[in-house]
């Protein structure tokens, strides 16, 4: 489904701040894989997301989805295959527009945007059904401006907008990190449910070790621009947070340094 072939990315080339963010990343996701990604500060997790979604283009290597090379395509063209939820709950929705208008824009993912009504009667019905899956009552507030919603509600809407058109790849970039624990738990539950129901191939960055172990069928660990550990489902099931941290220290030679890391 998703394939990264020897992908490398350098920041600020030729300056004193030069920093290699990704080195020779090789990663292959099978259809239906739900992979969690952990790693210390500056490990390259967000860069990995950006290189896949097209916010950045790799300096070397190639990104393929379903056999098509997409490395040279700009972000807005890649969105045909890639759905994404950002860490910042404000980032994934347009605040001055209504809930149904936001969904209408997501509905046209990867399709031409012409002069059809953004919100037709048929589309509104679909949006209402989709919103019901969130269980937040947003289906009764279709005409409310998104800026009036709470951070948790906005993130739930972002998650729905990123996923309901069934993209080939769903990227979740620490999408629960900016929320309080109760709302983070709600979004995590919704994520699990949506990914399962729609059988989405998913890559989720998280700083929550316990979450990384509990969710998904595969776990990868990154450090200094490399993937240092790739744990398959069979081993992941009875992994503990302590073991995971131990593995990290053993392979990387240093402690997991992340000021936001949550152990579980």
């Amino acid at each position, binding site marked *: 489904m998703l394939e990264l072939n020897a992908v490398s990315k350098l920041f600020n080339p030729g300056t004193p701040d030069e920093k290699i963010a990704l080195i020779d990343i090789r990663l292959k996701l099978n259809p239906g894989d739900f992979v969690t990604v952990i790693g210390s500060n500056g490990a390259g997790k967000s860069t990995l997301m950006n290189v896949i979604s097209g916010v950045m283009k790799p300096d070397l290597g190639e990104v393929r989805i379903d056999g098509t090379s997409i490395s040279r395509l700009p972000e807005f063209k890649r969105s045909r295959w890639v759905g994404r939820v950002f860490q910042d709950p404000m980032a994934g*929705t347009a605040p001055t527009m209504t809930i149904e208008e936001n969904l209408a824009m997501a509905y*046209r993912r990867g399709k031409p945007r012409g002069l*059809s009504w953004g919100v037709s009667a048929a589309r509104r019905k679909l949006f209402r059904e989709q919103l019901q899956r969130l269980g937040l009552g947003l289906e009764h507030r279709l005409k409310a401006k998104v800026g009036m919603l709470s951070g948790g509600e906005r993130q739930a809407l972002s998650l729905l907008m990123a996923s309901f058109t069934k993209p080939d790849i769903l990227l979740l970039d620490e999408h629960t990190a900016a929320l309080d624990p109760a709302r983070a738990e709600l979004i995590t539950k919704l994520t699990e449910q949506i990914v399962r129901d729609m059988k989405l191939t998913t890559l989720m960055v998280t700083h929550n070790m316990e979450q990384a172990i509990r969710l998904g069928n595969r776990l990868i660990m990154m450090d200094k621009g490399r993937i240092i550990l790739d744990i398959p489902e069979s081993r992941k099931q009875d992994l503990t947070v302590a073991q995971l941290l131990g593995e990290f220290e053993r392979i990387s030679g240093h402690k997991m340094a992340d000021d936001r890391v949550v152990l579980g």
Partner: protein
Amino acid sequence: MFQSLTGAVELGLMYALLALGVYITFRILDFPDLTVDGSFATGGAVAAVMISNGYAAWIATLLAFACGLAAGAITGLLHTKGKINGLLSGILMMIALYSINIRILGKPNISLIDAKTLFSSIASKTWLYILVLAVVILVIKTLLDAFLHTDRGLSLRATGDNKRMIRSLGGNTDTSIVLGISLANGLVAISGALVAQDTGFADVNMGVGMIVIGLASVIIGEAIVGTRSVFWATLAVIVGSIVYRIVLALAYRAEWLHLKSTDLKLITALIVIVALVIPTINRYYKQKSLARRRTAELAAAARGKGAI
């Protein structure tokens, strides 16, 4: 008195298209487009030259629209593809248009006094004139509202609201910016064409200060009508344009103010400054008193629980 008021309404309606253009760039796209000063005169110049050469007034007005679209598109391309700062793109285009407008006119101004314009047959019937203008402006407003609710229009609005989001959903923000600025300047050029036909002449300097007049209309309208939805926001802009003209007419009638017609731009600038500063001050004090009240409440609640 009455005559100057109906005159103000007429002007307000004609300049409403200018204000709608400024609304599209400043408010929807969040792009400070200064092309407007040039494209307004371009619209007037194109219409005046065509009409004085015997073309039908409606064809002249349509061509003015097309020229405005082109001017705006170039500003948009300078900004998106040429990566030139937004403000500077507009200024560059405005300056370039000054020379182009003189080329179009062939001389600094053209008179249309005896020519057959869109308004020739109704200009003397005040109420009919206002009615026809109002209908035309409302039709254009409705078309614009409709466009802003299509897939393409939603993408345009989101470009001003949250670029990152619409890009991640597959919207091309560069296309939206070019389209929006183009459409805005098309409307501004129609406004210039209408004003030239109403006043009976086109002048290379007729566009000077239009951006501020447009902005004043937008701000006044938003303060009076509000911006609950696209429908109300565009209506607000039209109302703002008319109210602005009425305020000016009243100011000029107040003889004790000793205003000269050349003071127009100073007054406009003052209106915009006041309209921008008052809400900021208001917000500051509201926020401050709210913060004080809520903190006191929360502190009292904490004391009640014995936390202190």
